[in-house]
């Protein structure tokens, strides 16, 4: 019966490996049918993921195979007694040093990505100087505040700021930065397609930068439990070429400052045309 149990324990790692190997082909991998990350940093994160996946897959297959083989041998052991070994210094040194080296390599390897991702000193300068928008999470929606065309985002809301709810437009091919905050509880700004996630902390303003490299509409969800409607925080990030993005802002300005007579309030059109001239 022992051999049957060995097969039982062999079956499950095989099932695990097969389903993992299948995953990219049946859409069980990264979002949007295993699409490549829609940001350059996201691609680097994916690469790191695959490196770790390869390392862990080898270790997984190796350890499970050795485990099953050891069981197989143990089940068939016809000796009167098992072998009397209390340990082996050399062996233990080997299996401490090798994983240690691999782990240290992984740790050092990823430092750059982390620094580029989160440490403000390494943020792209243009993005830091001119934040795209302020993103405010609240139960249970996302609010976006853009500066008026040609102006810079201010800490405090300005009279000519542009607002939208649950729809963030972003130009593609250039790094942008948003200021993330929360009005009530903790939320998390999660853009699966771009591999971006940052908690929105009440009382803090957290700068988040990303560079979308593919136009498209991506889901923006909340990843930190924020109450009963947590699952409902459904928004989209629309990545579009620069000119379409400017057209969107113009459109937004017109809608927002529409005075009901088919004209846009003079003051605001003024600033807008000035901006275009510049």
């Amino acid at each position, binding site marked *: 019966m022992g051999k049957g149990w060995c097969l039982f324990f062999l079956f*499950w790692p095989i*099932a695990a490996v097969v389903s993992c190997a299948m995953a990219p082909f049946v859409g069980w991998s990264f979002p949007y049918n295993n699409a490549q990350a829609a940001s350059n940093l996201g691609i680097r994160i994916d690469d790191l993921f695959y490196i770790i996946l390869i390392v862990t897959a080898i270790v997984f297959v190796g350890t499970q195979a050795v485990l099953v083989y*050891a069981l197989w041998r*143990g089940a068939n052991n016809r000796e009167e007694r098992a072998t009397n070994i209390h340990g082996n210094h050399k062996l233990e040194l080997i299996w401490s040093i090798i994983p240690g080296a691999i782990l240290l390599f992984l740790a050092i390897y990823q430092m750059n990505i*982390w620094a580029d991702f989160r440490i403000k000193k390494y943020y792209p300068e243009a993005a830091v100087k001119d934040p795209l928008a302020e993103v405010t999470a609240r139960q249970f929606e996302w609010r976006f505040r853009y500066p008026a065309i040609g102006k810079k985002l201010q800490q405090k809301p300005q009279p000519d700021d542009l607002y939208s709810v649950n729809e963030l437009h972003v130009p593609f091919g250039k790094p942008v930065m948003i200021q993330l905050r929360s009005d009530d509880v903790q939320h998390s700004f999660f853009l699966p*397609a771009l591999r971006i996630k940052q908690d929105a902390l009440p009382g803090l303003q957290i700068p988040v930068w990303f560079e979308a490299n593919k136009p498209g509409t991506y889901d923006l969800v909340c990843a930190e439990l924020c109450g*009963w409607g947590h*699952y409902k925080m459904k928004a989209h990030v629309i990545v579009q070429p620069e000119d379409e993005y400017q057209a969107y802002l113009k459109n937004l300005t017109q809608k927002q400052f529409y005075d009901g007579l088919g004209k846009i309030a003079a003051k605001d059109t003024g600033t807008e045309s000035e901006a275009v001239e510049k």
Partner: protein
Amino acid sequence: MTTLNPSPTGLQPILNPQAHHAPGNFITKYIFSTDHKIIAIQFMFTTLLMMIVGGVLALAVRWQLAFPWESMPIVGPWLFAAEGGQISPEFYTMLFTMHATVMIFLVIIPILAGTFGNLLIPLMIGADDMAFPRLNMLSYWFMWPAIACFGMSFAYAGGPAAGWTSYPILADLAQAAPGSGTAQTLWLLGVTFIGFSSMMGSINYMTTIINMRAPGMTFFRLPMTIWGLFITAILQAFALPVLTAGGFMQVTDRLLGTCFFYPSGLVINNAAPTVGGGQALLWQHLFWFYSHPAVYIMLLPVMGMVSDMLSCMCRKPLFGYKPMVISMSAIASLGFIVWGHHMYTSGMNPAVGMAFMVATMMIALPSAVKTFNWTATIWGGKVEFNTVTLNCIAFLSMFIVGGLSGIFMAAVPVDVYFHDTYFIVAHFHYVLFGATLFGVFAAIHFWFPKMFGRMMNEKLGKTHFVLTFIGANGTFFPMHFLGMQGMPRRYADPYLHGYLEHLLPMNQFMTISAIVMGFAQILLFINIFYSMFFGPKAGRNPWNATTLEWTTPSPPGHGNFDFIPMVYHGPNEYAVVNGNKDFLMQTEKESLPANEAVATNTLDET
């Protein structure tokens, strides 16, 4: 060592076996008992009962994910009559909050420390009872106020619904969530009570292990089980006060108007802006300073027990006893400085993230050493495939998966993507269910004869194991894929989001597996209750094991040992030449044949 009439077995008679305390009448013997074995049994039945509660909550969560907004079978129509039998999102948040709370605080921690800590520590070190028997009794009875608080919290406005992590502001201010009223305060009180219980236990365990070891039981002759429980007790004693303090701060925030955890100017639920000068991040630091070590509190005792059980079932000495002890200590001490890896996306200083990342990566190292050592223990052994062995191997097999997925989490940039997705859920279910609970199942089968004097049924045990193993893998392995596809945790209805729409069939598959796994536990209960009364009687040492508890009668009487046990060598002396046996009890003085004596002594004397 002065000898008092040495007996033929090398044991010494105890002058007065009842000296410690008397068993007393029925109530003091079985209900308000100070006997560690009875307390262990009390803990076991209470925690198993709670496992049913936690399991039912889990099945309800899985029901919602497989059949969203459909009427719950059986309980739906009368429980949620107003919603037409379906689970409301508020109720769903309560479900997963309480599933985690019950499983962590009322099942896994107390079944390890409470049941096996109590049962095994005095027996394995050769003591007649715990150092503080009454404190021990209290540690059990303090579970009940906790259970009462958690139970009552269900009744208040939807129950606590801020997740088991109880993150502010959601858990801190009553207006933030429907379930965040009195229910949340009761939840915090419940955690505090269970904290008292754990604290009393851990003080008792440390004192007992340090002071009450039998003659000859040096630290490096302690069975691995005791090492696991000892290190756990230390972890518990140092980490728990931080959570308790944090819990009190949250309670005062809620009741007395302090503002440790919330800043000013928040507009919650259209109420007036809050006043305050606190910071939600503070809670996360306090919480994870306990709750990360708590992961090891939930794992190290099992690691110890599995080491002893595997060694016994393979009839081989444990491979690398000292490295196992050292790696356990390394896991525990590193465990203290990695709490920040739960907070990579939290908004704390990212430079700190790097330090936490390196420390977290390094935790994988001692874990790997342990895994290799267990495999090497099996290697060349004579494996007997009984329920204990099978559960131990399941522990090992699933611990490997949980450990490896931990490496993804340790890598900060990758963790940013996986944080708060189902990948994390997969990881900790592999560790906490896959590893810990399989270890616990093995331990229940292994020490059952010592608890009740009877053996458990093998057929039932194996059927339970097979169904649980298949069900567990079927439930938890696909969670990795859900996580990769970016499905966040704690969503009542992930299919609302376009990119997650196609996940319904996978979730349904997982729910079916979970139902199989849940119903398999009925077999465990049948087995326990049947075998308690009708199982075949076990002798003193049914497994031919070597540690001290097997020198006592099954079950041991009040005061445990007939003789003060003398310990002559380490705990796992199997595969030796010893008459017609292949093992050497720790109390047996017989000199080993020359070649084996060398091998044994290198570990004990160095």
